């Protein structure tokens, strides 16, 4: 799992690529927290276009991102989610907590 970080005007963008399973999520959650703690963003965008596989470990990552942004009173958007990852998100009902945009640009 590779994560690219861009931060402009307290907008933080994290671009994920690779497989987001339990093996990868341990580091990914740590990297996400570090990036949020450093940038203290008003808005966090997670770009999942490069996520080729995701299981419930990705749900744990989204819940963590949500908690981080709630603490900062900021917003969270997950975008460009591939069909397999979207089905996992739907099965977990995560769209009740996190704003997910499947298509379009960041």
């Amino acid at each position, binding site marked *: 799992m590779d994560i690219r970080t861009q931060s402009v005007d307290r907008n933080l963008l994290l671009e994920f690529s690779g*497989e987001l*399973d*339990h*093996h990868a*999520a*341990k580091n990914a*959650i740590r990297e996400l927290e570090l990036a949020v703690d450093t940038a203290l963003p008003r808005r966090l965008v997670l770009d999942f276009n490069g996520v080729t*596989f995701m*299981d*419930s*470990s990705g*749900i*744990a990552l989204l*819940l*963590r991102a949500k908690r981080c942004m709630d603490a900062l009173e900021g917003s969270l958007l997950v975008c460009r989610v591939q*069909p*397999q990852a979207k*089905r*996992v998100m739907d*099965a*977990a*009902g995560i769209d009740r907590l996190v704003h997910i945009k499947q298509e379009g640009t960041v």
Partner: protein
Amino acid sequence: MRKSMNYIRLEFPSRSSNEGFARMATACFASQMDPTLNELEDIKTAVSEAVTNAIVHAYPDSIGRVTLKARICEGNVLEVTIKDAGKGISDVEKARQPMYTTGGEERSGMGFTIMESFMDGLTVRSNPGRGTTVTMQKKIASRATGQR
């Protein structure tokens, strides 16, 4: 028990680096059933959940043995069994409930929910102190007979 047409049996230590291997190997084996991409992804996702459970919960402080068996049964049904000899689950009903986890913030508690929704059958048998066996079935629709 269903009649088995073909099977594989894998054994590996409960290291998280084997999660990807386990789901890929199962998907490769299942590909002879001519599944759709969606069906293959469903199988990979469910296997990933079951193997992760064995790694995280069965052997929390040690490395143990995980056995994965996949077999093709009559009626184009794939059956996958993931077995560990770890600490077991004292209350299977509770463990299967959405959002329930003993795995801390790294886990979401959605593993069994996802296995249930991505497969056609799920059975969990567990003996505290002796281990857990998860058995899942997935019916692969036949393209030739237009059942899809």
